[in-house]
């Protein structure tokens, strides 16, 4: 999946105190043909060495901050907005999961869908032959998942109940605006994919260069602190 927002690409100023600090070593070696030789003949005088780090107010050769090797050079979705970390998003999804689980369980009871045991026995290395399927219940849960997350994030400025509790919201990764309703539902369907591979799509934000989950990538979104 190629993101239009590659970390090497836009030099958006990082939020204060955020992840954007370039490694200290990168200040010591100016690129060849950089500060010592101005491109325009007769143009700007070479800046004093202490001018490093302060971008010139006019002129062509602004210092471009390089993303560090750790991939922490995230462009902020909007000046002043910081991306939410794993902890907040984890707690939010637990809250929302409980909400969706309660709704699903009540509806399943009304509709007469068997919840079943749906679990395997953890802790023994043998191939479990008695793995109980829970197809109907899980499909109902998937429908509620899409309706709940799509509806809340589409109509409530990117906030589910869990996100409200944690002070975070879904935003477009480029503009910082709430997602349109259609993309909120794309993101909600994307959750099913993120959850299908043992939640790997959720964990993806831990090592993704853009700190995005799979459903973030499908909807070109991110989650920010408000």
């Amino acid at each position, binding site marked *: 999946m190629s*993101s239009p927002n590659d970390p090497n690409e836009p030099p958006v100023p990082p939020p204060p105190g955020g992840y954007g600090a370039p490694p200290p070593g990168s200040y010591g070696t100016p690129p060849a043909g950089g500060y010592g030789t101005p491109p325009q003949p007769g143009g700007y005088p070479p800046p004093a060495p202490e001018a490093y780090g302060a971008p010139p107010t006019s002129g062509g050769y602004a210092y471009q901050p390089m993303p560090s090797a750790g991939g922490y050079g995230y462009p902020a979705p909007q000046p002043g907005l910081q991306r939410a970390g794993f902890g907040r998003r984890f707690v939010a999804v637990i809250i929302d999961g409980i909400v969706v689980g309660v709704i699903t369980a009540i509806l399943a009871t009304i509709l007469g869908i068997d919840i079943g045991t749906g679990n395997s026995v953890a802790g023994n*290395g043998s*191939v479990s032959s008695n793995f109980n399927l829970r197809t109907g219940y899980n499909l109902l849960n998937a429908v509620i998942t899409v309706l709940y997350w799509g509806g809340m994030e589409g109509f409530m400025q990117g906030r589910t109940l869990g996100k409200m509790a944690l002070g975070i919201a879904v935003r477009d990764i480029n503009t910082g605006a709430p997602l349109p309703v259609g993309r909120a539902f794309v993101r909600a369907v994307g959750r099913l994919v993120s959850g299908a*591979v043992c939640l790997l799509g959720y964990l993806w934000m831990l*090592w*993704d*260069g853009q700190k995005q989950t799979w459903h973030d990538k499908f909807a070109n979104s991110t989650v920010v602190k408000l």
Partner: protein
Amino acid sequence: MGLEPLVLDSARLRPAVLIAGVALVAMLAGAPGIPCLLRQTTGIPCPCCGMTTSVCELVTGDLGASVQANPLGVVVVAVALVSLVRRFSLRVPAGVGLGVLFASWVYQLVRLGVL
């Protein structure tokens, strides 16, 4: 498809490792694991199936059973432990990550009798 490399950074992994550690203690005390949604719904295992079993077996000392359930469990535990005690930032090419996932999926499909 210009896939970004995956960045395994100790500082970013640490909160997740701590949460997983709490869950692991609960499971060793008898709490049920998190079932694979794909397998629970369709009967088809996913690439990470067997991971809970693998990690539980490893931390209780049965390396053989751990590898049998999912060979990646050993790798995950190793990365998790190292992230707690030292700083690192590893860049893994996306192709390597996808290749490992695919190999793991084939292994699980064979192990659980789908292939």
